[in-house]
């Protein structure tokens, strides 16, 4: 075996194997795609109870220095100066053409920021940020930390059983971040996730994550869930996956992420522009984009997967599906994809070409399943 092609492992690799997971290569890591219960059951368990996901492959980049928020604003089109300590914000790392290098969570930890970035992008992000801001800020990829997500409506009661105070949990809303002691361990916990459900993402030292994961799994409401369920959950919740629905060739407005350009950074805001690609992006915020990411419901039972060409009813090409599969909670196939703005209105009937046949598919509003965040 060539050591360079050997996938990396997370600190929970042995646990996944012990639980009988099917392991697959993903973003340079060997990750669980499903456990013996199967993707459908893991998906449903997450919506009904609580599921534990290992997301330790994601990058946690610590940022320290003077005026961290102001300097990060030169790369991220969000209001970080207005982000209070103990809060996090979804943000896009942009290129000069207004495309998306990565999507991430920016957390204000008080004396520093933490950026939680995609696994496949983390080394490139670190290199890029160091190149752009390395003379003023210190960036550290914290690969000594692990990350797990506990997702589902019973997540808060599970954390309570591990020692989190009910008052603290009740005060902790969506996108709040707190230091909690769980099962005797110091954890950095954010109320967030990638499933559309209430839940938490928990950052802990890599050498204690096994104990934490086992304690969480000991709770009767918690089952492990893999990448397969994570994908169907995020798709039903209408959340973009970087590398599929979002990449260096897509702009935030095209991707339906205009909300991720903070008002303070838009034309007429307190600090308009001043981030890569601002000219294009601010023009698109005002005027719209030529194409849009839309939700799509195939009208038959055949899933329409990434790459499926989309056309109008005369067969004129309009775009393509970027993510697609089966939605266990809606019990039907679902997709998202880019279409010309003229055909992006919900209710528009299109066709998707599946194995040489044009099958009907309808543009719909996202999410497909209501998001149930603790707001």
């Amino acid at each position, binding site marked *: 075996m060539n050591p360079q092609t050997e996938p990396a492992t997370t600190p929970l690799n042995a646990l996944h194997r012990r639980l009988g997971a099917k392991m697959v290569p993903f973003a340079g890591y060997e990750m669980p795609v499903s456990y013996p219960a*199967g*993707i459908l059951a893991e998906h449903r368990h997450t919506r009904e109870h609580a599921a534990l996901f290992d997301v330790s492959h994601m990058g946690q980049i610590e940022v320290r220095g003077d005026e961290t928020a102001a300097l990060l604003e030169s790369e991220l089109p969000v209001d970080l100066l207005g982000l209070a300590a103990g809060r996090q914000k979804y943000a896009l790392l942009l290129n000069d053409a207004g495309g998306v290098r990565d999507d991430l969570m920016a957390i204000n930890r008080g004396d520093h920021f933490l950026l939680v970035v995609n696994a496949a992008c983390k080394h490139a992000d670190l290199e890029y940020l160091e190149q752009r801001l390395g003379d003023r800020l210190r960036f550290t990829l914290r690969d000594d930390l692990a990350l797990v997500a506990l997702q589902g409506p019973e997540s808060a009661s599970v954390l309570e059983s591990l020692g989190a105070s009910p008052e603290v949990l009740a005060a902790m809303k969506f996108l709040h971040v707190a230091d909690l002691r769980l099962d005797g361990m110091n954890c950095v916990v954010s109320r967030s996730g990638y499933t559309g459900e209430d839940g938490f993402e928990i950052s802990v030292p890599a050498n204690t994550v096994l104990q934490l994961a086992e304690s969480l799994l000991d709770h009767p409401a918690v089952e492990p869930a893999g990448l*397969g369920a994570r994908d*169907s959950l995020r798709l039903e919740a209408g959340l973009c996956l970087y590398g599929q629905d979002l990449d260096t060739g897509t702009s935030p407005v095209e991707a339906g992420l205009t909300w991720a350009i903070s008002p303070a950074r838009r034309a007429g805001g307190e600090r308009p522009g001043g981030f890569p690609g601002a000219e294009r992006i601010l023009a698109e915020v005002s005027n719209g984009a030529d194409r849009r990411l839309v939700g799509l419901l195939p009208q038959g*039972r*055949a899933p329409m*997967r990434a790459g499926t060409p989309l056309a109008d009813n005369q067969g004129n090409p309009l775009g393509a599906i970027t993510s697609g*599969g089966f939605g266990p909670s809606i019990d039907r*196939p679902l997709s998202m994809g880019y279409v010309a703005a003229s055909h992006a209105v919900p209710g528009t009937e299109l066709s998707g070409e599946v194995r040489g046949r044009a099958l009907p598919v309808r543009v719909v509003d996202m999410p497909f399943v209501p998001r149930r965040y603790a707001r």
Partner: protein
Amino acid sequence: MSTKYTNDHEWARQEGELVVVGITDYAQEQLGEVVFVELPDVGRTVSAGEEAAVVESVKAAGEVKAPLAGEVVEINDALADNPEKVNEDPAGEGWFYKLRPEDPSALDALLDDDAYQALLASLA
């Protein structure tokens, strides 16, 4: 009534003048939970190795080839509403379609149970 197998993990079993076709337990296990099966039209003539059906799981789509040449005379309509039968009973209720073989002796050329078990052992 012995069952024969292909290297692509389809099974074929003689039933009177017809041959019933499905995918093996190993194939359904690899695919994961099946959510959709696209079956050939009745009356279609398929050649050996031709893609005759598509099986979609929550993870991916997989093609199912015809183990031998013939005419499709019946399909398992129950899979339209209950595709999970492919996972639950791949060798029985999860059958895909029935062929009238062009040459019934073509079945003899497929893998017998011992040969298929040896193939699975080599994949383990």
